[in-house]
């Protein structure tokens, strides 16, 4: 895949909220090698604290996590009217319907990506959304 000028230059601050430690570690390795700065939160509660305390160019949010899941993070931000202040990409392997995913976008989530996704495509999407 050819790298665009934008992809080369844009260094992003990314938050990954996912309970799958293998994915978070490998994704962080990949994104850091691409020159980005990553923060990992392994559950929704930790993710929400990070979102409230820091500013991220883009947030990758898993939906299905034990106890405090991605839906709870979205609802919490929605309740405080701050959901649309963040660029949140729902990054999920959940078997939820297209309508449910579209509904999340209507509520204020920026985009959604379904696992498994090609890693180059994921990176392009991250760059594209961070630049919106």
């Amino acid at each position: 895949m050819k790298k665009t000028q934008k992809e080369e230059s844009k260094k992003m601050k990314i938050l990954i909220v996912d309970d799958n430690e293998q994915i978070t570690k490998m994704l962080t390795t990949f994104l850091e090698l691409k020159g980005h700065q990553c923060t990992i939160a392994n559950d929704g509660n930790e993710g929400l604290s990070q979102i409230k305390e820091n500013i991220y160019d883009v947030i990758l949010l898993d939906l299905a996590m034990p106890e405090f899941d991605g839906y709870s993070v979205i609802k919490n931000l929605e309740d405080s009217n701050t959901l649309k202040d963040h660029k949140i990409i729902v990054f999920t392997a959940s078997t939820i319907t297209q309508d449910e995913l579209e509904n999340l976008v209507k509520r204020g989530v920026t985009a959604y990506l379904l696992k498994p996704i090609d890693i180059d495509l994921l990176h392009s999407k991250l760059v594209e959304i961070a630049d919106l």
Partner: protein
Amino acid sequence: MIQKVIFFISNNKVKDMLAVWTDSKAFVTTLRSLFSLMWKKSHHIDETDMESILGSEITYEHRLREIEQEKMILSYLQENFKSLEKGKK
């Protein structure tokens, strides 16, 4: 306000169900009190809570997709680690 009730009764001996309808104020008030008592400790689950409960279910397919994603990132890193590291420098 509830003004009428209809309820169904049956037992082991009688095969068919019997429906009883009444607008008796005493009966309606009694049944309403009984139901209020029964549901006193229940709590309302709104749509988003339900979505959260259902959404958290980890299915077999979900796990497979996660594994597939892990595999894809790992393969990419194995194939491109050196060039990515060079790019970083």
